[in-house]
């Protein structure tokens, strides 16, 4: 938000152009603009044309209600006066048009900014404020404050439960999910590239449906598949003699619980990676691969020295988003047996925060945990964005 610096005296016109290409835009990086080789050119017309709508705006201004200061009309009554007045009227009209042009984007943006500010930024501030209080039911009902300094943070950071259970659960689970999602997604993207068009469309549509499946229903299906009493997986393995169905409950063990959650999350999120990477793959000129073949590189070498460098920004974006998503997995864990706090060994940061708040009614504690999770995600995001910018600089500010 702070990056835009809305200077009211500054009309957005060509001076903005040199800055524009530097604007951070990860999704942009994933798009073919890299392949056109001149991302700047896609930006420049916008900047150069900036006065364009201004001209349109001025011509429109004369007709707009309340904008009767159009040069022609202002000059009409005083035909005998010096052209100076006409000039000043024209100037005034131009100024009014410019003012309108400058304020219109903010008018258009105001409702959206208000909604985002009131429902995202303000609560974020509130959660930090609550995290420094012993905030329970009494404070909610009475609307009173009950500051206790950093006691919540001290209690959270001081207990071994965080360091031996919750943090490893959160970080390792996210790391494994991201790795598996990105690898599987990339393999699927490479597979899509080899398929004939009909099969490609069919496969892509099918995997996108896995993405669209609601997390709630998806989780219940996986719970049903792995259900210890009559679930398909346990029964199937039991009939093969691999496990004893009577003595198997994978939801109670921490590792097996997370293994099932990992399958669920990877199944749900690999389609996004596959489709995004596939879009990136399409932007790589075929000649590069042909040149690689001529030079005698095998498929593995071509992948690492042609494909990966060419779509590195796409990979970065995909990894950033996957990391962020997998760190805050909630539904897929909470809805599994024991995941709602009944089994403390399987909580991650998000679920812990929720359980502290809404099961224990320790809203201050829950808020503090949520703040820690947010800080963790913020740190990850910053690291990635820096990487993205470094990537952009390498390519001559092409981001």
């Amino acid at each position: 938000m702070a990056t835009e610096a809305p200077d009211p005296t500054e009309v957005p016109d060509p001076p903005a152009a040199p800055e524009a290409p530097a604007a951070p835009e990860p999704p942009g990086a994933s798009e073919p603009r890299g392949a056109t080789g001149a991302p700047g050119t896609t930006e420049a017309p916008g900047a150069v044309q900036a006065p364009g709508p201004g001209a349109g705006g001025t011509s429109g201004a004369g007709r707009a209600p309340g904008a009767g200061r159009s040069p022609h009309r202002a000059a009409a009554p005083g035909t005998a006066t010096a052209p100076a007045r006409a000039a000043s009227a024209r100037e005034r009209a131009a100024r009014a048009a410019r003012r309108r042009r400058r304020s219109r984007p903010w008018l258009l943006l105001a409702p959206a900014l208000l909604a985002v500010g009131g429902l995202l930024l303000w609560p974020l501030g509130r959660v930090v404020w609550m995290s420094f209080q012993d905030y329970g039911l009494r404070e909610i009902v009475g609307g009173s404050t009950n500051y206790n300094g950093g006691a919540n943070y001290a209690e959270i950071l001081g207990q071994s439960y965080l360091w031996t259970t919750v943090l490893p659960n959160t970080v390792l689970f996210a790391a494994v999910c991201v790795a598996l999602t990105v690898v599987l997604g990339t393999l699927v993207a490479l597979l899509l590239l080899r398929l004939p068009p009909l099969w490609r469309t069919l496969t892509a549509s099918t995997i996108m449906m896995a993405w669209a499946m609601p997390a709630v229903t998806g989780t219940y299906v996986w719970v049903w598949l792995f259900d210890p009493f009559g679930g398909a997986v346990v029964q199937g393995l039991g009939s093969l003699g691999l496990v004893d169905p009577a003595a198997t409950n994978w939801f109670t063990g921490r590792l097996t619980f997370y293994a099932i959650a990992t399958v669920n999350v990877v199944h749900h999120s690999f389609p996004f990676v596959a489709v995004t990477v596939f879009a990136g793959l399409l932007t790589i000129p075929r000649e590069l691969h042909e040149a690689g073949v001529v030079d005698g590189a095998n498929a593995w070498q071509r992948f690492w020295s042609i494909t990966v460098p060419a779509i590195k920004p796409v990979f970065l974006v995909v990894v950033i988003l996957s990391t962020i998503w997998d760190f805050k997995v909630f539904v897929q864990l909470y809805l599994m047996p024991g995941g709602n706090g009944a089994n403390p060994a399987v909580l991650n940061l998000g679920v812990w925060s929720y359980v502290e708040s809404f099961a224990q009614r320790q809203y201050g504690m829950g808020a503090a945990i949520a703040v820690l999770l947010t800080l963790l995600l913020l740190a990850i995001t910053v690291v990635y964005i820096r990487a993205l910018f470094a990537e952009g600089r390498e390519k001559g500010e092409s981001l």
Partner: protein
Amino acid sequence: MRTGLAARTGTGVATAALLAFTVLPGYWMVTSAFDPRANARGASPLPSGFTLDHFRFVLADGGFGRFLLNSALVGAGTIALAGALALLAAVAVARHTFRLRTTVLVMVLVVQMVPLEALVIPLFVQMRNLQMLNSLLGLTIVYLAFSLPFAIWMLRGFVAAVPREVEEAAYLDGCSWWRMFRSVLLPLTAPGLVATSVFSFIVAWNEFLFAFTFLQDEAKFTAAVGLHRFFGQHTNDWGAVMAGSTLITVPVLVFFVLVQRRLSTGLAAGAVKG
């Protein structure tokens, strides 16, 4: 040719394995929902028969009709609000100030980054104070905020794709800005608006955490929360649970398939065109 028989077989096997893994949960869900003896199914790949009893049960006794209607209401409200606000904002971002792009991007990132668990606590308190905890409207307003940044991001591409000359022509013909917006921009960005709306709808339809925290009265439950409640009451009636899951999933899939292609072009356009 390098693509010999072995390579083709490999591709075929890989595709088959991928499709099997992808459709497995959906297939299992639907077949269990129609299976008269779903609980005793074990690992048998085919259901033991065909029945609509599970669907009848969840709709009549489980109250899923009400839940689905509530979800639809929340979803419709979300797309109406998000569509209007996002389109206006997208015009501002695409047409006016260049640096607003960064703002929107930061907003999209913030929304992606902030864990819902951090927002649910303060918003719960806020909505409680506003007496909107148990209201579908309160939920709609929250979903609006979540779907807005992404919707702006997508619509920006669609607005940018409308040639400026068309707008200028409207001005020359004497249109005010509002008239130009209604008669030029709105029709030309309508496809994008549809795609974005479907996306917002799916977000609202699938959301669990806020609905679960806010709604206490069973008559107000959305489908996801209703399924959770139902599962709590009928834990081992898997046929019925899968029938409820199917009822929730099918509308999403239908919508998604309808606009999938447009959604991805919109994403690309949002990123490229400026």
